[in-house]
């Protein structure tokens, strides 16, 4: 029998349906793979072995009874930002301690409704604040990818670094992730996986630990565009418990991956040609344009004038929202409580001990830009620039059906390489953050390897609610790219 961990989600569901193997068997295969790899990669912060085996057994019984759901028996990894009932959920922050929710996030509940199995909770940057997974209280994830024959430890990206590394290293069939400024797409690009951030509001935020509420969206990281489409379809859907959840019906995302893109207009924004971008990224982008042309698309040069202001805008809006959202961590109702001389002292000590350096930095920036006298100069201005960025997209989408860009300005870097300068780290999200600010769906897919053998990704951005075009274009690019590379399993 072939290695069950190396197949795609679509292949696994097919094999389960044809009784070639059971959910108990494939779940067991993943648990074995995790046991071998996790001491080296640190992708999972909690492996829920017993629960996974019990879920798989129940799933096999459902399938035998003819009651198989769309993801019946498929073992997945869940980012630690999602609250899972009875299973420790910490956002990889010390401040949540051993927090064990008494409720289930809507997204994970949807996945379980459809038959999915949870293998465990995946590592991430603390409160999803980071682009390298180095801010996690549980330590960084090590990417399965290496530069040539070097053994330097590389980042899988962040904040969904555990999700990307686990999918890339065959430690789950697919994973949940979240994206506030690029936290699904950047790690997907760094690890040769597919990551989708849907339209804002497609996935319920209920039960997901909040970072920046107007930007946060859940989405999948998967091995193929088709797998990502299937996972998103299960994760998404209207939820009355999230007031920003969209009531619109869910299209058949999987069917969209087989749609012809002949005659579609693909926009190429000149502003994404940034200074200092490696020639390989430029060449990859040109290659992507050629693939789209060959599939019968018309390439349309477009202008997204305010692109360079997207990251500074994000670093006002996101910390401002984070400072408000994280005010709830006061050590009174959950998490670890530190001691102090009085009530305020308890708050201050609890938060100083519980939050890591990057989280504290962002809380202070957010508090500063919202404080009396600075609100108009920073927060209000940022909201206006955000409107300008959204307008750029509205004008562009009057002329095109989708936009094609590189996913990241570089390949994965080494752990510790960008530790000293927060702004240098923030620049990782330069191509991804615009879609969050404008609330648009966007997908990163692997398209090539660089000279050092590291994956590089392309990004497809769509109109609000038009994930179908994003999936259609991405699937065509995936067929053209024929990306088959896998990281060598050096940990075995």
């Amino acid at each position, binding site marked *: 029998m072939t290695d069950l961990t190396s197949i795609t989600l679509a292949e696994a569901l097919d094999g389960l349906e044809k009784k070639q193997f059971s959910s108990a068997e494939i779940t067991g295969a993943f648990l074995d793979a995790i046991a071998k790899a996790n001491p080296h990669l640190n992708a999972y912060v909690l492996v829920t072995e017993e629960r996974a085996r019990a879920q798989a057994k129940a799933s096999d019984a459902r399938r035998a009874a003819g009651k198989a759901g769309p993801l019946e028996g498929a073992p997945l990894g869940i980012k630690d930002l999602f609250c899972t009932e009875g299973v420790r959920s910490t956002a990889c922050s010390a401040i949540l301690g051993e927090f064990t929710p008494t409720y289930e996030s809507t997204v994970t509940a949807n996945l379980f409704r459809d038959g999915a199995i949870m293998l465990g909770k995946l590592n991430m940057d603390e409160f999803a604040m980071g682009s390298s997974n180095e801010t996690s209280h549980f330590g960084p994830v090590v990417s399965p990818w290496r530069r040539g024959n070097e053994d330097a430890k590389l980042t899988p990206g962040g904040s969904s670094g555990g999700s990307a590394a686990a999918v890339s290293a065959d430690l789950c069939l697919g994973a949940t992730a979240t994206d506030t400024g690029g936290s699904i797409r950047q790690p997907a690009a760094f690890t040769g996986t597919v990551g989708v951030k849907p339209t804002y509001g497609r996935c319920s935020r209920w039960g997901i630990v909040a970072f920046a509420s*107007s930007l946060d969206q859940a989405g999948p990281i998967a091995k193929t565009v088709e797998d990502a489409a299937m996972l998103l379809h299960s994760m998404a859907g209207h939820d009355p418990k999230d007031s920003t959840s969209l009531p619109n019906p869910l299209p058949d995302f999987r069917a969209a991956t087989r749609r012809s893109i002949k005659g579609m207009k693909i926009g190429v924004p000149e502003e994404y040609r940034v200074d200092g971008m490696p020639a390989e990224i430029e060449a990859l982008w040109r290659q992507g344009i050629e693939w789209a042309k060959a599939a019968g698309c018309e390439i349309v040069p477009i202008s997204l004038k305010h692109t360079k202001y997207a990251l500074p805008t994000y670093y006002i809006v996101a910390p401002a929202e984070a400072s408000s959202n994280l005010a709830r961590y006061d050590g009174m*109702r959950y998490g670890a409580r530190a001691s102090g001389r009085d009530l305020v002292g308890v*708050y201050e000590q609890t938060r100083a001990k519980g939050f890591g350096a990057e989280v504290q930095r962002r*809380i202070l920036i957010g*508090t500063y830009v919202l404080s009396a006298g600075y609100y108009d100069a920073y927060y209000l201005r940022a*909201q206006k620039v955000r409107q300008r960025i959204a307008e750029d997209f509205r004008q562009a989408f009057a002329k095109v059906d989708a936009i094609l860009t590189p996913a990241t300005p570089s390949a994965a870097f080494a752990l510790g390489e960008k530790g000293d300068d927060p*702004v240098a780290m923030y620049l990782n999200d330069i191509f991804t953050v615009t879609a969050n600010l404008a609330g648009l769906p966007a997908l990163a897919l692997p398209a090539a390897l660089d000279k050092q053998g590291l994956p590089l990704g392309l990004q497809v951005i769509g109109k*609000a609610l038009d994930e179908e075009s994003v999936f259609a274009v991405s699937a065509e690019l995936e067929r053209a790219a024929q990306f088959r590379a896998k990281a060598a399993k050096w940990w075995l």
Partner: protein
Amino acid sequence: MSIDEKTVRKVAKLARLALPEERVAPMARELNGIMAWIEQLNEVDVDGVEPMTSAVEGLSLPMREDVVTDGGDPERVLKNAPKAEDGFFVVPKVVE
């Protein structure tokens, strides 16, 4: 606009974050580095632009009946409390 050490202390107080004295100067430097980079937003002409307050166009916040939909389960609510007693959270003394 530069952030001095006094401002860092004030903001840390507002955010209820104990900042050890030796961290104040480095934090001021770090925040100034980030804020200096953010200053470029001043180049953008935002005259007459409506601030964007929602990521979704045309969606107004839904209303629902003001009725209890969940609750009555103090055990679950208190499950993760650092300290609880008789169905209540136990917190440090607030009023003398």
